[in-house]
């Protein structure tokens, strides 16, 4: 591995030296140094929990580092002062946007730049500045539009404009592509090119290798709080970056060809109310066939939550039918779904998957406590519950002190293993895997994937819903795309190109399929 020399002339605009930050026993950052030159894009690459967010929080003064210093444009930033970084010309675009939906783009951008007690607000001047910035950098957006009417990609442009309007010279983008379609991602990258051509500098935080390769000049790889390496993109490849990021060779899951069986669960022309602010479902047709993983691609918030609720049993169709093993379902609830052999991995471990303040044993029986296995005449058999918890702990390699430990004490990966153990117990014929690997480290991700593939091999029908398009494409035998509550026709592995899937994710090409159904 070759550490690149400086690719730019002159002093770096931003320099972090020896940053160390400890939380209890965990070293979140351990002697991390990073410099950013003028007109340079540096990618900060690392898995969840590698220390990227901690580093950025130190840069922005939200945390005070235990050791190390931060310099911007040659001057040290005082630690623990969030305004110092902003006034030094550093702007951040968060993964979750911080915009007021009821206000116009112009007001959102100007918000906070005006003196509190000033009566006059030079709207036309502000508008002219925004339009000029938008024109210069290809950030096409209408300043008078209400933010709530904008798409996710447009909102991100507003966030970038907000930073530029405050004369940011250094832009930090935190996982900017997580919410974008492939086309929107390309547009973002074009904008980044223009920004660096104008002499701005960018830190691009990501865990997606191909994006890092496409957009960055230099890559700093973090692993478990330490610097795992620093390379120029020209001198490396995806494979080497992956190895640096993970610390070991990871083999892509070895997937045998699917042997599809009959449809085990079908949705026929289903309409249903939206969930969690997402759109309602319009005429969904979907067959989940045994021995096959059906992947659901789509920008998050396009009806995936409503579809997941439908299959989990927490929501019922307002029109259309759920057909399980050739019989139309008439009554539908979580209990009915479980009785029909549906294993459910919910999207949010803490909110719906587990009851944090109850014990491991209490949590693993939550779907089956009424069965003869765990209860008799209304009394629960806690011995059997503990034994079941012990069995899951052993079979799924859960790190936990005992079945009586509160689930709150477990890490995300171990919690997910418990959920897997609970959902896959009794060999369900249909499995809903909703964001099954979100926030997990690499080892846990490949473990979850392996278990899902095991279930596929024994003939289960699996619906995989994930924000991570790479994950969907890697695991799925068939892919369907969801946009604005509609579902595309399925395509076999490799049948649609990435561009076609991106078009569907952006909502194009649905008119035909809606009627064909």
């Amino acid at each position: 591995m070759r550490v690149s020399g400086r690719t730019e002339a002159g002093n770096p605009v931003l320099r972090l030296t020896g940053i160390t930050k400890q939380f209890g026993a965990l070293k979140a950052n351990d002697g991390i140094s990073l410099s950013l030159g003028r007109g340079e894009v540096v990618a900060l690459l690392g898995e969840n929990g590698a220390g990227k967010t901690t580093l950025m929080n130190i840069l922005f003064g939200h945390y005070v580092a235990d050791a190390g210093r931060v310099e911007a444009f040659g001057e040290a930033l005082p630690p623990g002062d969030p305004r110092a970084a902003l006034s030094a010309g550093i702007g951040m675009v968060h993964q979750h946007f911080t915009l007021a939906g009821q206000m116009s783009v112009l007001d959102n951008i100007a918000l906070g730049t005006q003196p509190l007690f000033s009566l006059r607000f030079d709207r036309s001047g502000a508008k002219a500045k925004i339009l000029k910035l938008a024109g210069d950098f290809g950030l096409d957006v209408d300043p008078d539009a209400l933010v709530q009417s904008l798409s996710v990609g447009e909102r991100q442009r507003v966030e970038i404009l907000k930073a530029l309007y405050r004369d940011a010279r250094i832009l930090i983008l935190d996982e900017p592509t997580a919410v974008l379609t492939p086309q929107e991602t390309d547009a973002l990258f074009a904008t980044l090119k223009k920004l660096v051509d104008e002499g701005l500098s960018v830190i691009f935080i990501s865990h997606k290798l191909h994006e890092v390769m496409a957009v960055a000049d230099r890559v700093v790889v973090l692993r478990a709080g330490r610097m795992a390496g620093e390379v120029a993109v020209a001198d490396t490849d995806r494979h080497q970056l992956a190895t640096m990021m993970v610390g070991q060779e990871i083999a892509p899951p070895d997937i045998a060809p699917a042997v599809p069986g009959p449809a085990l669960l079908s949705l026929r022309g289903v309409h249903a109310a939206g969930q969690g602010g997402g759109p309602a479902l319009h005429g969904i047709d979907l067959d989940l066939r045994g021995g096959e993983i059906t992947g659901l691609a789509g920008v998050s918030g396009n009806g995936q939550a409503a579809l997941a609720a439908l299959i989990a049993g927490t929501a019922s169709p307002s029109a259309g039918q759920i057909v399980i093993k050739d019989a139309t379902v008439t009554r539908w609830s979580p209990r009915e779904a479980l009785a029909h052999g549906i294993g459910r991995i919910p999207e949010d471990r803490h909110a719906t998957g587990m009851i944090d303040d109850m014990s491991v044993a209490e949590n693993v029986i939550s779907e089956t406590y009424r069965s003869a296995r765990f209860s008799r005449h209304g009394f629960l058999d806690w011995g059997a519950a503990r034994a079941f918890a012990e069995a899951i702990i052993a079979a799924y390699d859960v790190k936990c002190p005992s079945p009586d430990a509160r689930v709150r004490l477990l890490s995300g990966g171990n919690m997910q293993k418990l959920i897997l153990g609970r959902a896959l117990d009794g060999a369900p014929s249909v499995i809903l895997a909703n964001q099954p690997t979100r926030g997990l480290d690499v080892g846990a991700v490949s473990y979850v994937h392996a278990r899902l593939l095991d279930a596929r091999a024994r003939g289960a029908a699996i619906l995989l819903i994930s924000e991570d398009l790479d994950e969907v494409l890697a695991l799925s035998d068939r892919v369907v795309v969801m946009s604005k509550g509609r579902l595309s026709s399925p395509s076999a592995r490799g049948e649609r190109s990435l561009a076609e899937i991106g078009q569907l994710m952006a909502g194009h090409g649905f008119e035909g399929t809606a009627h064909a159904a």
Partner: protein
Amino acid sequence: MRLEPRPRPTVLHTLGYPAGAIAVTVVFASMLVLIAGANPFSVFWLVIKGAAGSQFAFMETLTRATPLIFTGLAVAVAFRARLWNIGAEAQLYIGAVMTVVLGTGAVALPAVALIPLIMVAAMLAGALLLLGPAVLKIRFGVDEVVTTLLLNFIVLLFVSMLLEGVLKDPTGLGWPQTKKVIDAAELPRLVKGRRLHWGFVLAIASAVVTWVIMKKTALGYEMRAVGHNPEAARFAGIPVNRVLMKTALLSGGLAALAGFSEVAGLKGNLTLDLSPGFGYTGIVVAMLAMLNPLGVVLSAVFVAGIFVGADAMSRSAGVPSYIAQVMVAAALLTMVAAIMLSRFRIRWR
């Protein structure tokens, strides 16, 4: 300032903070006693003596604890499922009304049949009274704190109406009170010449049964799950609304037993001052017990002891017995703070 959950509360946290809470309460009450011009040590000694200094005093304390055990259990059960039943007072009075309706001669049965019949009727009435707010909460999202609290006043006015009307004792010299219950409806005294009655045994039995329900049965499991995280409970297939309704029935029934036990075991008839706020004090009792049904027995005896002891003390030391209410209230506030501190730590930033 912000709160961070403690990963593992230690013994120091779970026992030390409550002990500290009691210490703070005592210091605070001592200051009030000093202001009243008395010596705190002698006042507290008188309180302790008045509550437990003799067989008679201790039996008085247990007598006073009896309704508090019932209302404390009612609150503990409901709060465990996050059903905020502030209406134990109303449920108590409805239970008392059923006791005098059936127990003053309208039904002529031997005691072995009449007492269970009255108990069941009282529990049903209390259960149904809380079912209304529970259904409103489930159906329309109406805050049960408001509905159950306001029901207390409605029921008290309703009882007042009955006492001036259909239930008024014609031989009562015009006082707003009912007839005495007949002998077959009376709960016998436990010890001759003392006021402690079988209602206390019933209260202990109720605490044990409630503990078994909470710890050992599917219903108790469901109630705890719904209380901790209703969304996760619903996802797992636990019928959250049905569980809330069952909780309401159980809680209302337990509170109604307090009214039954006070009328059938102690007072003999129903008057408007049957309960000096037992329903509200039940909240304190349940919180001090950290919602544990067996703990409710201990905390009810503790709270009752303060009240009984303070009464005795005020007669001899001249410090108003209101000090008891101040102490109980201070104990509740410090205990709530202690419970929070045992589960969270405060970070100043």
